[in-house]
């Protein structure tokens, strides 16, 4: 096993734990409506680190990266359409 790769994996793990403590800490701050933005933003960063380094997307080419991110694009459509319905309901 290459030493540099092991160190990199451990470094990512430390970063993930730091992000976890940040997100738990931020949940005690009075962020109000910004709370889900902060907590989901940190979750997105954690997921990106895992996708990029642990799941080795950095070593893959365009097609595999596209397949990995594809579900995210569909989810975005799901969330956008559902939330636009819920938010505007009753106001027309």
């Amino acid at each position, binding site marked *: 096993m*290459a030493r540099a790769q092991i160190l990199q994996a451990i470094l*990512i793990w430390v970063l993930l734990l730091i992000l976890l403590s940040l997100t738990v800490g931020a*949940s005690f701050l009075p*962020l109000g409506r910004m709370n*889900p933005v902060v907590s989901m933003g940190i979750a997105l960063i954690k997921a990106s680190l*895992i996708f990029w380094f642990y*799941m080795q997307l950095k070593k*893959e080419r365009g097609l595999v990266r596209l397949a990995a991110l594809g579900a995210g694009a*569909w989810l975005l459509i799901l969330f956008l359409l*559902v939330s636009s319905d819920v938010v505007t309901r009753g106001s027309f």
Partner: protein
Amino acid sequence: MTQGSPVHEPYTEASQQHEANMLGMFIFLGTEIMLFGGLFAAIMVYRIEHREQLIEASKRLYLWIGTANTVILLTSSLLVALAVQASRAGSRRVGATLLVASACMGVGFLGLKGIEYAKEWQEGLLPLTGVRHAFSGPVQELFMGLYLAATGLHAVHLTIGIALMVGLSWRVGRGSLRLPQKALTVELCGLYWHLVDIIWIFLFPALYLVR
């Protein structure tokens, strides 16, 4: 990459075969993401409609158990990432040990989750039939229903992951899964494990950190 693995029909080169393997796995993982996506959409709608009551319901969950479980899963992902590197390097014993260690962390996660469910069951917060309920209102009941469905579905996935890791570890340890030629098998199972971890990374703030 798939160094040393033989190229099968219909592929002409190893890189093409590797790409096809990865593409298939990531598309499967995409279907898993969509499966959980529906649950996340439901959580989002509740949050928009009943923000105040949802915050109260979320505060009743055991934040420390959720946080400890997140640490466990993040660490297990590190072990799996190292196991994949060990498999590529052909270190059988290290690979098998790391795989079984990650399976043990998965079992630890399920154990803690079980304790958490037991506590909530005693408090009457699990929406199961034949149980005394003590919900503060319909919103908490709906929230706990989503919580049970989402974490339960995640636990099922984790159980599959544990079985995969134990099976892999057994085959790697015995030498029936030859390394580094078959490192791809470890790699693909590793991708599944990481995805189960990622789903928890989103479930944790969506359920436990609603403030």
